[in-house]
């Protein structure tokens, strides 16, 4: 039986570099990180500090040069591209700054996309989609297209898409970066609810100190290393 103190994310001696022309830029060199299950962590730091790169590595859409990345007991740094795709489908939900919804699909069709990777039948998929959209308060927008919704509503659809297949881990890249304060607070409240009531582990990259207040703790990335700051609940 898992508990909140069980590790969800374990990073050991992580090394990540980028090559730009003839120059090699080191992002992480010996980075270590441990995040327990059901934690809600805000990752902050200056531009270029590697926040998004960290998120991409945790989500298995980028790979490291050295070190280990273990998510819920699985060494994802050892998985092939195909295995990573399978793993992402069932273990991770992504929330992007600009929502990344398919403009030609309705809210329900967008949310259904991750379920197409499961064995669920059409009826079960519809039920899951409706439940996910209910969690984010969009039960009445199933058949609306993204262009018919506000930014906040689109981000809610993106969150519904991220949670519809019930992953343990949500990775949010500046989820409120494109929203006004009031709408941002609504989105962050939903993330808080997902963490508190549904036990989702959330790693959220943000520049916004007010957004970070919704997390249980904030980690500041600076020159490839973390500085932890406790936040008031």
């Amino acid at each position, binding site marked *: 039986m898992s508990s909140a103190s069980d590790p969800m994310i374990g990073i050991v001696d992580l090394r990540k570099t980028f090559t730009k022309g003839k120059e090699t830029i080191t992002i992480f060199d010996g980075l270590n990180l441990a995040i327990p299950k059901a934690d809600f962590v805000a990752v902050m730091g200056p531009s270029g500090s590697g926040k998004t790169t960290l998120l991409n590595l945790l989500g298995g859409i980028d790979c490291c040069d050295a070190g280990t990345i273990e998510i819920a007991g699985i060494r994802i740094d050892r998985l092939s591209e*195909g295995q990573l*795709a399978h*793993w992402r*489908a069932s273990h991770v939900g992504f929330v992007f700054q600009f929502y990344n919804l*398919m*403009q030609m*699909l309705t809210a329900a069709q967008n949310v259904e*996309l991750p379920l*197409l990777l499961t*064995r669920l039948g059409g009826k079960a998929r519809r039920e899951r989609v409706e439940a996910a959209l209910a969690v984010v308060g969009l039960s009445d927008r199933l058949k609306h297209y993204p262009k018919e919704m506000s930014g906040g509503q689109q981000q809610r659809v993106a969150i519904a898409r991220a949670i519809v297949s019930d992953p343990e881990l949500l990775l949010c890249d500046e989820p409120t970066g494109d929203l006004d304060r009031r709408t941002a607070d609504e989105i962050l409240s939903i993330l808080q609810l997902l963490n508190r009531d549904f036990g989702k582990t959330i790693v959220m990259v943000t520049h916004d100190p007010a957004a970070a207040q919704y997390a249980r703790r904030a980690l500041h990335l600076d020159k490839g290393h973390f500085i932890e700051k406790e936040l008031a609940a």
Partner: protein
Amino acid sequence: MRSVLLQMLAVTAINLRSLPKRLWLSLATVVAVGLVVMVLLTFLAMANGFQRTIAGSGAEDIAVVLRGGSRAELNSVVSLDQVRLIEDGPGIAKRADGKPQTSAELYVTVDGIKRSTRTKANLPLRGLGPQGPALRQGIVITAGRMFNPGSNEIIVGRALGGEFEGFDLGQTVAFNNTRWTVVGIFSAEAGVFESEIWADLPVLQSLFKRTGAFQVVRARLTMPASIEALRSYSDGDPRLKLDVMSEADYFAQQASSTADLIQKLGWPLAIAMAFGSLAGALNTMYSSVAARASEIATLRAIGFGGFSTFVGTLVESMILASFGGVLGAAATYLMFDGFTASTVGGNFGQVVFHFELSLRVIGQGLLLALAVGLLGGLFPAMRAARMPIVAALYG
């Protein structure tokens, strides 16, 4: 497996629904492929129509006898003695009065003026006896009457009369300094004989100074298999250096060389054009992949596999090409199906025929369109499948 299929369907649906964003580029590809298919189908319909007109005219139970090695009536000479020997040959059906059902005929070419282009062309003028029409399938006098023996009268095939001027009922025409009156129009089940002019054999022999000479003997066989007996008889008699074949085989051989030539012109031209449309399809699909980079990366991040992205892009390309194929086939059908044309047949006379788009011909056009779609989509699809997720997500 079900999941992979659902993924492919989802990616394909997303690709197709985003087509309006790339409307003009996609339409250009559809039109380019459509033009390729149209060119190919026009040539194939021409070859098909020509072949059907000629090959459809031959019967299995009619023997055609020509001089050995002549291959066509115009090159052939059959003497009166040889005609008599053939009439006595085995396997030839007899009339009620016991005489053989044969027709020795003379075949010459005369000048005609094409109505559409007003250019000169060679027209076949055939001299035949009273049994001649009965040895052909479905000959019906549709207007006027049969020519009278011993007169300068002609009857004209319906297709020839429609395509060349001066052959309306009652008109007179001049051949070889002699005036001839059109007294009848006949049909021949749209076969090759509808492209001929018929006159009384002795009159034609006399006026063309070919008395006693023939070019072909037609004979009705007791059964199709009797052709072998007649051929053996001819081969075994040194006085008969003749080629004996069924009318069906004769016309099939006549049709194949011209139809082959038309096809040999059509395919290379269509393939050369297909390369041009292939470049268009590649351009469209690379643009499609570039425009959908963020969507593709998002789907991959969610967990969609590279294969579904590959298939989705390929299917989009093939659907565009299919639309082009259908457009080309429809345009060819509307513009050319049933279109009447004439060309030189195996006998060096004009053969009037209709362009004919069969399902087989349309199938060939659609296959070419799909090939363009497949090749045009292959490399862009590979790019879509291999696209680095992070680079595409963050542009």
